């Protein structure tokens, strides 16, 4: 109990004094998570919108595949990307393994289906009258799709925030593809994992508290975005 108290005190000290190692780890985590969220959003939001607007025979199957991919564990995604980028893999020549780019790539792959599925769902729930109104006001297909997407923009933003929350808290991809290299690919979650295995709780607790605050902030942002007209 006393050890835990000491660890908490030390963790708070590390946060309040903006410890250099904590700052480096948090900054790397944020950088990777923001980059992968941005990349995934650029690819998956248009894909999700296109899927919502598309009419084709196997649409339900595509949606089912997307929903299945949401449940894939991060270590499986990490392993999949590892097989692509390790030295003998098809992308081995790019020498991405154990680099920030590898983590960003893995995290992007992880949240692509999530952002696409949430975007598709967001656009599908827009009142059909919006589409008909845009059409009867003379909008072409592209402008109509943009208008419908614009009506779902709060939900699309929530999709991005949810994806960010997913990657900032993942450990499997960062560990497998990043290698937990200090000052380079060490993230909040891999650092917590390492510190815990060493029996040194203070740094892990400090990072855990920061992660918890980030998750709290993400939830607040999602709730506020969900209720106000943008």
């Amino acid at each position: 109990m006393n050890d835990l108290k000491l660890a908490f005190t030390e963790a708070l000290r590390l946060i309040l004094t903006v410890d250099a190692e904590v700052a480096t780890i948090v900054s790397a985590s944020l950088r990777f998570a923001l980059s992968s969220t941005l990349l995934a959003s650029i690819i998956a939001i248009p894909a999700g919108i296109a899927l919502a607007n598309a009419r084709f025979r196997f649409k339900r199957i595509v949606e089912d595949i997307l929903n299945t991919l949401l449940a894939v564990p991060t270590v499986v995604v990490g392993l999949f990307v590892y097989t692509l980028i390790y030295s003998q893999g098809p992308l081995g020549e790019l020498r991405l393994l154990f680099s920030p780019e590898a983590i960003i790539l893995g995290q992007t792959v992880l949240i692509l289906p999530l952002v696409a599925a949430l975007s598709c769902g967001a656009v599908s729930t827009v009142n059909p009258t919006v589409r008909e109104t845009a059409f009867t006001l003379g909008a072409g297909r592209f402008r109509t799709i943009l208008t419908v997407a614009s009506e779902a923009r709060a939900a699309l933003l929530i999709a991005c925030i949810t994806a960010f929350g997913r990657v900032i808290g993942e450990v499997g991809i960062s560990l497998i593809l990043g290698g937990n290299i200090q000052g380079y690919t060490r993230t909040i979650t891999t650092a917590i994992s390492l510190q815990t295995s060493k029996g040194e709780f203070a740094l892990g607790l400090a990072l855990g508290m920061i992660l918890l605050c980030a998750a709290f902030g993400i939830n607040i942002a999602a709730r506020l975005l969900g209720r106000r007209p943008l």
Partner: protein
Amino acid sequence: MSSGVAYSIRSLVHRYDGNTALDIPHLDLPSGRIYAFTGPNGSGKSTLLFILALLIAPSSGSVLLDGVESIRNRDPRLRRRVTLIHQKPVLFSTTVRRNIAYGLHAHGCPKKEIRRRVRTILEEMNLSAVADKHAAKISGGEAQRAVLARSLVLETPVLLLDEPTNSLDDASRPILVQMLLGAKRTRGATIVIAAHDSNFIDSIADRVFPLEEGKIRG
């Protein structure tokens, strides 16, 4: 493009799940007049308006708009000759001004012209004070007038209104009548209304078509 007849309907049949929702063998609607289709719910009024607005294609038949076949016609120029006000209209999640300018942008109007026309209709519809408010923050009556303004500002040759008085408050009703009569008189617009409200129809329509189970009676 104009042939003096806004719509020529021939052998129009539309079916939902095997049931005939609309069956109009022959109907011409000359331009520059106000027509009303009346009838109970399910009589086919809205379906007819959706077909006339090019929103849905009928099961069979032909609908000429200004002499051009409109069914499955993807020419945006033809589509932009018509605008429809829905029975339960929605305003987009943006300001009133942007809502009203939306169709003008879609029609490719020059920016200066858009500003001028939006300003004019805002004044005519008594909406200038709320022009820059978000559509979700205005009153019900203002929203109804904004919906009308958004369609009327386009000055399309054909205007379709699905139960327009359903969503209108008493104060906005005379504005609607005035605007529709003005569109007919000054621009020769053809106006087609689907409605229950016989008082409103009697005050405005040149010709009334009672619809019953998808067929025109009388």
